[in-house]
């Protein structure tokens, strides 16, 4: 019974739910503000993502007559629910170690593609040619970035398990890093850390990998036909997805807190997410353009996957 209560709390309030939504909107605002400052502009106010969502709720919802209405309405809700559950599984170092029995990186492997799936469903249900194009691009790029993700997961699991085999429990991964220092400073894990750093803009579709939603080419791709509250739901989904991928990288490589105090640890966690966002999304987006689909696919296959696989191999040899 208490386990169910704990899980509900995790999904609705603390690591997922309200906390993840607020953190996601804050991170999106910081991203836009810092990008503007890098271009020597004033930029939008910090609460701009929240204002966008509020604005969209006042707009009319238009549904194309040729669209599959059920799938069209269901896709954003499905995506938001999926990422909120994923955010609930994420541990926060020194504050929250996840609901017992939920936290496992194999579960995360199943939960992480849900937002991409929701976008694909949206693109194909909208019956627009641009939506279909966005759907196929999203699918192709997803196949490319899943490989380094899985390889980095396995590398972390093997490194933590050591001679005893591989450990897939998030609790064990956190405990190992509390005892032996963060895996980020482990030379064996550095290639995998780099691969995860490239995976973040890949899954968020920013910088080089803005392929499925490229505005000048496919006009926002899967989101083309969405308007009003449904688009607002997609905006929230993308905000929470940002939190999930950042927290994932933090949990796998650098979950250490600053001491016993819960509030200090929480602030430290937010700071780590923010620092990771600045490096992997904002500066990357300010400095790069966009690749073609085939170039983006080749980038992950040729450069990112070998990095993660290198870590995996080294972790096997050195255990």
């Amino acid at each position, binding site marked *: 019974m208490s386990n169910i209560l704990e899980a509900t709390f995790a999904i609705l309030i603390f690591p997922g739910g309200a906390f993840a939504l607020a953190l996601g909107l804050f991170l999106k605002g910081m991203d836009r503000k810092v990008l503007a400052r890098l271009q020597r502009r*004033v930029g939008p106010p910090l609460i701009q993502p929240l*204002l*966008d969502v*509020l*604005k969209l709720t006042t*707009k009319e919802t238009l549904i194309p007559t040729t669209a599959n209405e059920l799938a069209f309405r269901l896709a954003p809700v499905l995506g938001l629910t999926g990422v909120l559950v994923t955010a609930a599984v994420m541990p926060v170092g020194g504050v929250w170690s996840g609901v017992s029995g939920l936290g496992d990186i194999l579960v995360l492997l199943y939960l992480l593609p849900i937002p991409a799936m929701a976008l694909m469903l949206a693109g194909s249900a909208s019956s627009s040619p641009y939506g279909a194009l966005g759907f196929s691009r999203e699918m192709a790029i997803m196949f490319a970035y899943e490989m380094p993700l899985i390889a980095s997961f396995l590398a972390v699991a093997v490194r933590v398990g050591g001679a005893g085999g591989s450990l897939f429990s998030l609790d064990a991964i956190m405990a190992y890093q509390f005892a032996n220092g963060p895996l980020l400073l482990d030379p064996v894990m550095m290639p995998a850390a780099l691969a995860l750093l490239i995976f973040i803009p890949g899954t968020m579709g920013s910088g080089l990998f803005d392929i499925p939603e490229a505005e000048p080419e496919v006009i926002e791709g899967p989101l083309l*036909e969405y*308007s009003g509250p449904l688009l607002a739901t997609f905006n929230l989904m993308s905000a929470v997805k940002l939190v999930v991928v950042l927290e994932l990288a933090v949990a796998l490589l650098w979950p250490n807190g600053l001491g016993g105090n819960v509030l200090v640890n929480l602030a430290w966690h937010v700071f780590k997410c923010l620092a990771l966002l600045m490096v992997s999304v904002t500066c990357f987006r300010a400095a790069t353009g966009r690749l073609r689909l085939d170039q983006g696919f080749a980038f992950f296959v040729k450069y990112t996957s070998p990095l993660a696989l290198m870590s995996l191999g080294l972790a096997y040899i050195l255990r």
Partner: protein
Amino acid sequence: MRNLINKLAPRSPWIYRLNAGSCNGCDVEMATAALIPRYDVERIGCKYCGSPRHADIVLISGPLTVRVRDKVLRVFDEIPHPKVTVGVGVCPVSGGCFRDGYSTGAPTDHYIPLDVIVPGCPPRPQAIIEGIVKALDVWRVRLTEATCCRS
């Protein structure tokens, strides 16, 4: 709660450019206002969007030529309410130098009611941004009165 959201909503205008047979002069000025950091429209919350379904403020340029009239009206109907229209350049009001030409039936505002007009051939980027800011007031009124700009 509804009132608060109505008050906050005009702080996030998303802009859509609708070319109704323009000579490209105004489009270049609009792109300049949007794309280069110097005129930073993002500071009033603007974002240029590619899809008409995401738009709040429509910037219309050009005299609405006969050839594109039906397409422009169709795209205009795709924009969800409440929407605000801004005519950029002299063409939407009077036809400009294309006035009485064989290819322009009538000025744009015979077909699409324009809320704000930014005159000039082409107008300066600063004037376009001022037009957007004036459109926000129209939007505010439209949100509280729940009126539509085209039936």
